[in-house]
């Protein structure tokens, strides 16, 4: 056993030291693996970043009421009468005068000019009641001030503020036929709310000609444990075509759906590319075996085992792919982690998020790289075991 390890180690060392002789083709193998790893990590970081953004949004003790069957606020319609009935539900936090903490909200798609592309993009302008801010305790004004209810003022999420024209504090911006003044920027703990513009719900209804239109109700529960009671009341007792879920569950479901779509695209693409890289690796390693044929035949003639020749070739393939992987992971971490991106969220509005890499994703990349190395190196390693020993007699080392 030790003899085999000693042989394998000696041959592997000799192989790796001979890499400069095959520098360019080895480099091409390293770079192809780097590319595969970068693409894979790009998708994984996107899915992870998106999931992080959405999963950091919402609370267990805030319920979101939509019309039944609507999976996004844009598709939901709630009548004023229905909203009044929800106010009577059990388990709600109420003020001293018995008023429940409920925010009637609607989201209107508005256009703004992106600074980088100079093109119109759709953003979400969310109309909220005054209680809407109470229900979003993570919303903090980072610049300027909070909007004044009943006025055409907006506050802008931090992720949008620097990316669109006329969203600086003090700017006025026209949405449709209405003019709005930007009075502040806010952060919300990295949550999805940072991709929205907030305004007074009544003003949004009036300015966009949507009188009394409500898309969602945000409700503060006295305790997360009361949600089931609240849901039973809204869905079963009232039975008016409404559905309730916790705010956290709502965003988690959205995160899951879109992450799945990203991964559904990302993994197959990475695997197809990995297949190409494995074929490239195989070519490189066949070339390596060919280049080392005399050396392999010589050590085999000296008495080195076939398995040592196999291991040494496989080790070379795995080392090259791991170098490619390490470069890919490093580049991804430097270039992609924390990189801002955006995608279409609800109502086709821009939803900004940051790409986020994690160690488990790096491990996935390493596993993929090892698979490329194993597939790309396996057959050439077999060939190394079958190098005719007569080659030692005929060739020039």
């Amino acid at each position, binding site marked *: 056993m030790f*003899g085999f390890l*000693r*042989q394998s180690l*000696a041959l592997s060392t*000799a192989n790796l*030291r*001979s890499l400069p*002789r095959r520098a360019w083709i080895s480099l091409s193998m390293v770079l192809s693996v780097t590319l595969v790893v970068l693409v894979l990590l790009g998708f994984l970081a996107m899915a992870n970043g998106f999931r992080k953004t959405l999963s950091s949004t919402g609370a267990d003790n805030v319920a979101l009421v939509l019309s039944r069957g609507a999976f996004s606020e844009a598709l939901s319609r709630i009548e004023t009468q229905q909203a009044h009935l929800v106010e009577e539900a059990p388990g709600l936090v109420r003020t001293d005068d018995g008023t429940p903490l409920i925010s009637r909200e609607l989201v209107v798609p508005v256009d703004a000019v992106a600074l980088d592309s100079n093109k119109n993009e759709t953003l979400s302008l969310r109309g909220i009641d005054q209680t809407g801010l109470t229900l979003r305790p993570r919303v903090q004004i980072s610049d300027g001030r909070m909007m004044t209810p009943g006025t055409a003022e907006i506050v802008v999420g931090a992720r949008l503020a620097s990316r669109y024209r006329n969203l600086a504090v003090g700017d006025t911006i026209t949405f449709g036929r209405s003019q709005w003044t930007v009075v502040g920027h806010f952060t919300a703990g990295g949550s999805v709310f940072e991709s929205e513009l907030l305004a007074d719900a009544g003003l949004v209804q009036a300015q966009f000609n949507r009188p009394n239109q409500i898309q969602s109700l945000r409700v503060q529960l006295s305790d997360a444990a009361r949600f089931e009671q609240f849901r039973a009341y809204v869905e079963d007792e009232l039975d008016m075509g409404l559905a309730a879920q916790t705010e956290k569950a709502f965003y988690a479901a959205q995160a899951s759906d879109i992450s799945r779509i990203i991964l559904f695209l990302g993994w197959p693409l990475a695997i197809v590319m990995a297949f190409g890289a494995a074929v490239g690796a195989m070519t490189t390693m066949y070339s390596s075996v060919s280049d080392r044929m*005399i*050396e392999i035949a*010589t*050590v*085999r*003639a*000296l*008495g*080195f*085992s*076939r398995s040592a020749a196999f291991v040494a070739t496989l080790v070379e393939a795995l080392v090259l792919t791991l170098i490619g992987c390490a470069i890919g992971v490093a580049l991804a971490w430097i270039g992609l982690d924390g990189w801002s991106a955006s995608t279409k969220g609800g109502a086709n509005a821009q939803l900004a998020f940051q790409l986020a890499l994690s160690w488990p994703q790096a491990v996935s990349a390493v596993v993929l790289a090892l698979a490329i190395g194993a597939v790309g190196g396996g057959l050439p390693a077999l060939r190394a075991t079958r190098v005719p*020993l*007569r080659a*030692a*007699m*005929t*060739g*020039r*080392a």
Partner: protein
Amino acid sequence: MTPVSYDIELTNVCKSYPLGKSRIPIFDDLTMSIPDGDFLAIMGPSGSGKSTILNLIGGIDTVDKGHVSIGGTMLDKMSTRALTRWRSEVIGFVFQFYNLMPMLSAAQNVELPLLLTDLSASERRERVHTILDIVGLSDRHDHLPSLLSGGQQQRVGIARAIASDPRILLCDEPTGDLDRKSADEILDLLQLLNTKLGKTIIMVTHDESSTRVAKRTVFLDKGRFVSEEIAQCA
């Protein structure tokens, strides 16, 4: 304990190589004996089968028919694994183009066959030192092959061949790539290994003057021995 004699016997050996759908015959019923301790030079034109004899004796090629026996061990009956192990213990190879690992130092090249033994690292180091001393390269331990002359590289090749103390050295044109002076030094070294250390040496060569160090020289043509010369002072 009686020392084992490593007499070499090739009996009724047939060997051919495939060429497309046909086969090119090399030997047809070749029989020869090489006694332990012999220094045999084999001469003959290209394609006469000189190197094939080395390959068959070294166990890196197999006979189609017949037997190769060394010290009573029938090579054609051994498994690949057993043959590989046997070769590492009994045979040393000296190649025309040295076949050194270009990325390993002289000492590391010589150490290669010792990795197949049970020697410890310090024992291996000591053995390498001694052998490089024997071949006159004690001051070239850490030199890469590319920094050595052809003659020096062949000395490293010979040092590697004798590192694990094999009984038989198979030399394929060991001076074929060297100038006259270096070739003479290598031949003298081989003669020393034969006379002082008792190694059996079988040397294939095109160079008639190289045969001066051999005890016997046989001439091979089309797979048959056509003549034999025995050195007078052998």
